[in-house]
């Protein structure tokens, strides 16, 4: 074995020992049990008011809209960029970039969440009910005439955010006109009462 061979063998041995210590080539391998824990702990999504607060505070967050160009042009979350799943699969950003995804409903964004987590992005969230949630909770928060104290408190927080984004908070509306979703307790899925804007957001689930 020549001197060069010894040097190469030593280099390979050192690199292999380093690999043993490093564990995984991507720093964090995709571990489905970790993903399952994140989903169970509801760390996979962000609420629309939280996202609104991040944007207002100027926090570094990249917001991606998975809907088509027409829908994006019509109505979108401020600062959001349109992207499709194919482009998302090739997205090249620092892996610790904070990313928020949304689509019409939640399904498409949830799929995109798994995709980005699989690609090593560590700080990814999605809007659970998509643009509908943004409209219902940020742009047009409503307070029912028979609101509970908790609902009134939430409305007082939501109203300034709505005004900031050019929305229109409304108080004293009939209970049936208050949009509902996962955020209401108990969850009511009757989303019959919406304004024109809310109604224009098609809830196709992707």
């Amino acid at each position, binding site marked *: 074995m020549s001197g060069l061979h010894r040097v190469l063998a030593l280099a390979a041995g050192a*690199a292999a020992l380093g690999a043993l210590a490093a564990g*995984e080539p991507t720093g964090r391998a995709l571990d489905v049990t970790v993903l399952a824990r994140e989903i169970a702990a509801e760390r996979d999504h962000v609420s629309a008011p939280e996202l609104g607060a991040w944007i207002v505070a100027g926090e570094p967050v990249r917001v991606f809209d998975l809907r088509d160009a027409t829908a994006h042009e019509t109505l979108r979350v401020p600062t959001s960029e349109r992207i499709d799943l194919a482009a998302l699969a090739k997205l090249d950003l620092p892996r610790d970039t904070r990313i928020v995804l949304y689509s019409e409903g939640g399904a498409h964004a949830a799929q995109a969440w798994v995709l980005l987590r699989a690609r*090593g992005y560590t700080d990814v969230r999605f809007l659970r009910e998509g643009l509908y949630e943004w409209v219902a909770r940020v742009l047009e928060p409503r307070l029912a005439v028979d609101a509970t104290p908790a609902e009134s408190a939430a409305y007082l927080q939501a109203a300034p955010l709505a005004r900031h984004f050019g929305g229109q908070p409304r108080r004293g509306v009939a209970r049936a006109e208050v949009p509902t979703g996962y955020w209401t307790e108990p969850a009511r899925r009757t989303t019959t009462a919406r304004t024109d804007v809310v109604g224009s957001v098609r809830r196709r689930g992707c």
Partner: protein
Amino acid sequence: MSAPYLDGGGMYLASAPLLGFAFGWLLERAGMGHPKKLARQFYLRDLTVFKVLFSALITAMLGAFWLARAGVLELGRVYVPETYLLPQLAGGAVFGVGFVLAGLCPGTACVATASGRSDGVAAVLGMLAGVLAFALVPGLHELSLVTPRGPLTLPQQLGMSTGAVVFLVSAVALAGFAAAARLERRA
């Protein structure tokens, strides 16, 4: 793992012949276009094949690991061929018999042909005949897809971290190189 680029594109396509020529040239430089040298591998008298191929393997493995770690290579986009257990066992046996008979494997047969060796040409023609027969004989394609196991990787199968597998394979290779050097001195 092979074919690191799943995406199309002219640049990637252009890299294929460059890599192919480099591969062939390196095989020729290592003396692997000579059937007698390759056949001596099976009698443990000349372990060049083992040394060259295992050197390439651990170089690629360590390179892929550390490039991925540095964020340069995205391992999720590296194609992992699917396993079809019985067809690949049968294919491995055919490959092995052909290797011993011809003293050449597909890559080195091409190298031998490029070097002007007639036995290399014979091996390449035999290989192409086999490919043609596979395409023309009905039912062979379906037979090649039985017992599918999907893409398998050692870390998955052994339940170990990728780094631990990289270390183990490297340790086996380095120990193998030392043993090969000793065997060749004795031969």
